């Protein structure tokens, strides 16, 4: 890689670390460290909410998904604006008005200590592991693309993030997030411009070809519990998932608890609602344009460069045979694409689609070969974008793209570390270990907790390859309780419901989701959130409501 790209990456890492660390000035109290004294403007909180949700997987995986699968992934986000509006008028006023540090703290005021501790424990368990997964995903890609060792890749992403989050607290997380969002959007827009210049046909023809390949199909109105990417899964399941994530997950709740007022907190969530679908469509469109670009420029048979060189070395005859078929088919598909651009009649579309299917079949065979040789699942889709960037972007923009991937990863990790530390200190240390101490003491414990969670996440990321199945188990376990926790918060807003009902409801919700997940494994995880939330509310209501509304007694 050109030295200028490295200069940009190193400058970015130095800049965000310095910018985050300098935010520690004036942070002498616990409320300042964890909640910025509830003083942040809505637009900064809104950008931080967006940056937290947008991880390196979005930059690498979603663009790759756009290239291989098209626009249909956008349906996953159809529920987000609905969820944000619902949260804006329901949960946000409750949580912001309660002047709490964590969402779970509110549950003790409303219900009891055991409900608070269980929900906080489930959050720590799932977010601690997912934080490791968020570091490991781009680290694995960097290792394969640049030949770095995993410890180096993890250190480059993890160490600066842990330093600025630990020293600067939530102020550092939010203000660095704001800058990182600009870097991410700037890099995506720059890549769109480069693609439009490099694709040899006009934008209308490029869209016609993408459409012929089915890449512009954004809506699927079929109703299927098994398919995650349909209109109905997105609208119903997606709304429940986003309600759970933005309403009950401390990594997001903490963002808007830092806002100056309830209305500013609401507005920050609405800002994310405003931009999410257009931004996600833009990121998918980058992938679709990369697909069109590779119709006129021969792509590699395997996108993962590490797998490609291993298969080439260890199964040369088989790979050469596949590659030769691939080159022939690619040439035929390129001609078909040119014909399609000049005359988009149904015959030209049929010929193009036939060659596209052939290319897909050859790739499937190559992936099976790579799997046999390396013994690893290929996850080839994650390498589409990095390969394009390294092979075809001009000097400088490559560095900007890598900085943007790092920014996307670091913004999510920083928010998660900050929220993990907050919940550890507020929901466990201050609640069960030491209730009375000076702010300085809790501040020191908060910084130590951030550092320890950072070490834990980096450790999980380092061993992610060998812990692969364990992480999958934890993620699956996470989907068991996400909707159920939402159910507890919904119950909290119903006057008169009791702590015992909420606790039993939470356990019943998780058990029901586990039954659905194991009994009908083909049902999409998006529906687990609906099942969990509805079960908790029904059980909580059935177990009776107290005569006096709890909120009146509190």
């Amino acid at each position, binding site marked *: 890689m050109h030295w200028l790209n490295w200069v940009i990456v190193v400058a970015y890492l130095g800049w965000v670390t310095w910018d985050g660390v300098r935010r520690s000035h004036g942070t002498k109290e616990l409320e300042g460290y964890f909640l910025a004294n509830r003083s942040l403007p*809505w637009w900064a909180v809104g950008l931080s909410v967006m940056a937290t949700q947008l991880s390196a997987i979005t930059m690498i995986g979603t663009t790759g998904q756009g290239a291989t699968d098209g*626009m249909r992934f*956008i349906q996953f986000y159809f529920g987000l*604006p609905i969820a*944000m*509006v619902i949260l*804006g008028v329901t949960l946000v006023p409750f949580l912001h008005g309660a002047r709490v540090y964590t969402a779970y703290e509110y549950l003790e005021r409303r219900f009891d200590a055991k409900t608070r501790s269980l929900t906080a424990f489930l959050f720590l368990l799932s977010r601690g592991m997912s934080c490791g997964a968020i570091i490991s995903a781009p680290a694995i890609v960097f290792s394969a693309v640049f030949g770095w060792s995993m410890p180096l890749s993890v250190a480059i992403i993890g160490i600066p993030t842990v330093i600025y989050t630990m020293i600067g607290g939530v102020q550092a997380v939010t203000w660095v997030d704001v800058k990182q969002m600009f870097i991410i959007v700037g890099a995506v827009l720059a890549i769109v411009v480069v693609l439009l210049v490099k694709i040899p046909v006009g934008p209308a023809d490029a*869209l*016609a070809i*993408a*459409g*012929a390949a*089915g890449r*512009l*199909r*954004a*809506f699927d109105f079929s109703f299927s519990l098994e398919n995650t990417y349909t209109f109905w899964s997105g609208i119903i399941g997606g709304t429940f998932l986003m309600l759970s994530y933005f309403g009950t997950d401390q990594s997001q709740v903490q963002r808007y608890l830092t806002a*100056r*007022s*309830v*209305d*500013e907190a*609401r*507005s920050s969530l*609405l*800002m994310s*609602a*405003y*931009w999410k*679908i*257009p931004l996600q*469509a833009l990121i998918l469109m980058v992938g679709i344009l990369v697909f069109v670009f590779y119709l006129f420029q021969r792509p590699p048979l395997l996108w993962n460069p590490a797998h490609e060189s291993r298969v080439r070395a260890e199964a040369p005859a088989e790979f050469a045979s596949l590659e030769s078929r691939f080159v022939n088919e690619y040439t035929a598909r390129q001609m078909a694409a040119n014909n399609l651009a000049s005359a*988009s009649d*149904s015959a030209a*579309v049929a010929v193009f689609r036939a060659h596209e299917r052939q290319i897909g079949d050859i790739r499937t065979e190559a992936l099976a070969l790579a799997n046999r040789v390396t013994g690893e699942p290929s996850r080839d889709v994650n390498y589409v974008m990095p390969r394009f960037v390294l092979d075809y972007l001009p000097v400088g923009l490559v560095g900007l793209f890598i900085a943007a991937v790092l920014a996307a990863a670091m913004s999510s990790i920083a928010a998660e570390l900050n929220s993990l530390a907050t919940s550890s200190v507020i929901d466990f240390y201050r609640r069960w270990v030491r209730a009375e101490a000076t702010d300085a003491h809790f501040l020191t414990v908060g910084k130590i907790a951030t550092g320890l969670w950072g070490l834990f996440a980096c450790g999980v990321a380092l061993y992610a390859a060998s812990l692969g199945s364990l992480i999958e188990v934890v993620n699956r376990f996470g989907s068991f309780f996400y909707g159920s926790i939402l159910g507890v918060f919904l119950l909290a807003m119903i006057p008169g419901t009791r702590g015992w009902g909420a606790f039993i409801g939470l356990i019943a919700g998780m058990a029901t989701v586990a039954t659905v997940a194991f009994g009908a494994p083909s049902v999409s995880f998006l529906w687990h959130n609906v099942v969990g939330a509805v079960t908790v509310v029904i059980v909580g209501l059935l177990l009776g409501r107290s005569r006096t509304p709890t909120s009146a007694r509190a």
Partner: protein
Amino acid sequence: MTDRTNADRRLFRRTLARVLAMQVVALAVLWLLQTSFTP
């Protein structure tokens, strides 16, 4: 304080209206892309 609260509330209402408008536009653009270019 009241002025501040009223201003925040106006901001919220204005943002809500913009969010709804943006979703209609975004979905319409996606629908047009699908129907115009998918044979």
